[in-house]
């Protein structure tokens, strides 16, 4: 079984700082004259944790995902949405990390590694399908587990179950505000189960109205989705800052 370090990345750096401080102090006293006063221990500066968001555009390369139309593949649509969402969040001063920037195959393991290395406050995986209507919003179907320093790789997301549900609720509210119907659900999906961050999967499907169906390729529909996701992340950032 593989294990991963849980908690925010800043916590790990702080722990290393505490371990190295006595060693540095000993080395310094060995080099200084015996009559010199012992140097003051270095002050440990607690840096404010950075609010970072990971956007994971699913599929890529030979794995094209669902065929959404004759000219549109899932991997291309989610990459487009990922780039637009990144630009919108960056414009609002939010630090964004994307797992995929081009049409390349990225294994699920590497996606989870990249996301977990950031110590993100939110991880959003983007998918698309032709089934259903509106947005399908998923969290992991894992049994919640307590947060510990080391988490099992395959079920690490279980420690973030509560936070992921709150993030899901934030996205749900933003989509409802944008008048996009949302179906909430839980699923077993890689790399979601290995993310050590509050994580949701956003699956986009055509908008089935009473009169007509809005296709996934509709730029206006895509704009609404990206704007709603950006609004949800900004709201999540405000909530995140108020957390102890």
């Amino acid at each position, binding site marked *: 079984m593989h294990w991963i370090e849980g908690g925010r990345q800043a916590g790990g750096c702080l722990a290393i700082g505490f371990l190295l401080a006595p060693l540095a102090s000993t080395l310094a006293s060995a080099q200084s004259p015996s009559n010199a006063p012992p140097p003051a221990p270095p002050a440990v500066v607690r840096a404010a944790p950075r609010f970072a968001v990971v956007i994971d555009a699913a*599929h890529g390369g030979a*794995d094209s*995902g*669902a*065929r959404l139309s004759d000219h549109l593949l*899932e991997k291309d649509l989610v990459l487009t949405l990922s780039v637009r969402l990144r630009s919108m969040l960056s414009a609002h001063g939010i630090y964004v990390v994307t797992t995929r920037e081009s049409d390349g195959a990225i294994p699920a393991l590497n996606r989870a590694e990249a996301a977990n290395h950031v110590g993100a406050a939110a991880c959003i995986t983007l*998918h*698309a*399908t*032709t*089934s*259903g*209507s509106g947005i*399908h919003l*998923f969290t992991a*179907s894992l049994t919640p587990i307590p947060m510990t320093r080391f988490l099992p790789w395959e079920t690490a997301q279980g420690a973030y179950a509560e936070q992921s549900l709150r993030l899901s609720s934030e996205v749900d509210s933003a989509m409802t505000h944008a008048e996009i119907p949302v*179906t*909430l*659900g*839980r*699923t*077993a*999906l*890689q790399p979601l*189960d290995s993310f050590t961050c509050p994580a949701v*999967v956003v*699956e986009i*499907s055509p908008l*089935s109205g009473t009169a007509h169906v809005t296709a996934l390729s509709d730029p206006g529909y895509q704009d609404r989705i990206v704007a709603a996701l950006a609004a949800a992340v900004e709201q999540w950032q405000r909530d995140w800052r108020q957390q102890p």
Partner: protein
Amino acid sequence: MISRGQRILFWTLLVSSVLMAVVLLRMRERAMDRLLASAETMPLNPPAGRPVQSVTMMMANDMDGSVQPATQNLALPVDANARAHVILQHLITNYARPNSKHPIATNKGVNEIFFMTLPLEPNQVVPGTVAVVDLSTSFVDAHPSGIEPETLTLLSIIGTLHANFPQISEVRFLVDGQQRDTLAGHADLTRVYLASDAPGVKHL
């Protein structure tokens, strides 16, 4: 000079050969007809003489992401594995029908189902049962790709098994006898699904 007896023997053998060839051709045609007829009646014919039983199908709906119970009457075999096979095959046949709320364009869905009894845990009275569902490649290839449709299919299968075989505690999936990563690119097929995850009415 050929004797009369030899001529009679020759013609008798010739006529017999022709007759045998005709009979063989006719038998071959009949065998082909039987084969085609059995293929057309897939998934399974109800066993003759068996009483019709009421079974619960957990039917998926793509539009609202729900799995709802529906009752159907089927003639079922006695053997539990065969009974589960017939029930799941009918479930998938429902999805292949026109105007299905969870369309999957294939009739051939399940190769086989095996029930295995799990070892008794220290605090258990009744041992659990794991159901191994062997899906066909044609079903997986024809399945729509997407998290929602794939998750609904798995919940529908797990829910239907649990509704008709309450002793099932876990469900595992294979495809043509082999382990496969995902159903159609999304839903994880490598993990063990708990039957308790699929209650009577399961919303996604």
